């Protein structure tokens, strides 16, 4: 099920503790999932389905998960056990090219 994303949206996984903030949103709706199931709006209650096999790699706090081609980027604001994916394709961690401190 595809959902329309918007930068700043906060979403949470149904299957585990993972929470994300949308950093970059594609123009079209996206079939965004965690643990194999659709994410819901942060704060929404849901009865947790089990994490699907193959989507149990987990997410890490502070990492960014992206699909450059789609123009999608998410920041993990709470870690969890499920993996983020678009459809069946697991999202990669966007390599941090950390800049030197400037402030």
């Amino acid at each position, binding site marked *: 099920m595809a959902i329309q994303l918007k*930068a700043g949206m906060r979403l949470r996984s149904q299957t585990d503790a993972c929470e994300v903030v949308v950093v970059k949103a594609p123009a079209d709706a996206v079939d965004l999932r965690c643990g194999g199931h659709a994410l819901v709006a942060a704060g929404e209650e849901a009865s947790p389905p089990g994490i699907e096999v193959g989507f149990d790699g987990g997410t890490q*706090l502070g990492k*960014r998960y992206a699909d450059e081609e789609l123009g999608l980027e998410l920041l993990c604001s*709470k870690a969890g056990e499920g993996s983020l994916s678009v459809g069946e394709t697991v999202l990669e961690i966007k390599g*941090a090219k*950390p800049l*030197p*401190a*400037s402030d």
Partner: protein
Amino acid sequence: MNIAMLLEMAAEGDPERIVLGPHDGGISAAELLERARRAAIFFTKTGTEVVGYFGLNSDTLPVALFGAALAGIPFSPINYRAPDEQLRGILARVAGGMMIADDDEVERLGACGAAHVITKGELAAATSEPVEAEHPFVDPEEIAVLLFTSGTTSEPKAAILRHRHLVSYIIGSVEFLGCSPAEAQLICVPPYHIAGMAAILSSLYAGRRIMYLPTFDADEWVATAAAEHVTHAMVVPTMLGRILGAIESSGTSLPALRHLSYGGGRMPLELVERTLRDMPQVDLVNAYGLTETSSTIAMLTPEDHREAFASEEPAVRARLGSVGRPLPSLEVEVRGEDDSVLGPNEKGEIWVRGEQVAGEYVGNTVLTEDGWFRTRDAGWFDDAGFLFVEGRLDDVIVRGAENISPGEIEEVLMAHPAVAEAAVIGIPDTEWGEAVASVVVLHPGAQATEAELQRWVRERLRSTKMPCVVEFRPELPYSPTGKLLRRVLRQELAEANPAGGAGS
């Protein structure tokens, strides 16, 4: 997307890490979040429309900043050095706001029209008990910070930074908890400067402990840096020279110091070179940014510094005077008067576009239709994409039909071995419209004459750029945020050299 999310993540990722204050007895991430939560509830209860902060840096500052963020109320740190008249104007513009103030500022604030003032001690007392409450949902479009930009003569503009601008900037440029708990940042930049705000956000998100030095004193800076094993610091140009002097005269070494960033105004090249020479183990970063762009938009990295310093090639060496390359998350262009995009080595105005660029003031946005912000800074790119900033466009001297950038002449003057600092301004001239004048500070014990320096400039630049006046002074006027107060000099020199008498 709320800047408080940055604190929430830090508290989640490493709750016990000391993020504020001294290594022994400082405040942990979890504790800072708790204090901010309590402050948020308190601010909401007061019904205040703006949370103002009027005082020196202290532990209260991050608490108030994040507390306001959690409550969805704009936060506005205000220049405590503003003269009364300017302060009255600012307070009128944040009427309905609550000022958190140092004890010794309460009376003045009241006299200048602040209706609701609370001391830091009173805020601490009001938030000493845990509270159970929900924080409201805060839209990323909400205003996070209101900053009155350094208008040194005219009324300051209230620059708006929304949550999404600041959060984009931080998550795009800082690695979450990328620092070890041993890292510590010494902050001496005032709270009302964008760097003061950005420093809190970036240090916290990176996991770097914040150590405040509320008032700058070079000896105290060095002593604090030594005692607290400070690894990082941000300095404005006027501070660095004094710090180097204090290190030398006190014989203190700073083995923990590994990173110095500077910005806020142009850093004299020889000071950069001296730092590279005297402290080769320290990484230097020149950060160029504006209030309206959530701080840094371009930086000269430590590698850039070292490569330029070591190079025999003039073009590469010259990069020490640049502000480096734009951040990857932004677009920066140099454009001509007709708004066309210019190529390398062509001077124009610096334009910038990106998620972190707010370009907005209370009452109006100054972004172009397609989201570009005009910095009013003059500059150019070299062939390798390094950006050079040559001063405010409104400081450009117009002499005859020629636009003259004071920065270019100042650089040449400062290259003279006797010259420590130089300011170049335009003064009225009946024949030319404006004449080029300069004020110079010599190194202690050094000597130079007006004629000598004029010849020096003439030999290196066109004769039209030679200052008709060279005035010698013990020091130049700077704002507390490191900006050369050219307008002040312009006025003084214009009076001393009435138009038509300047010759050239």
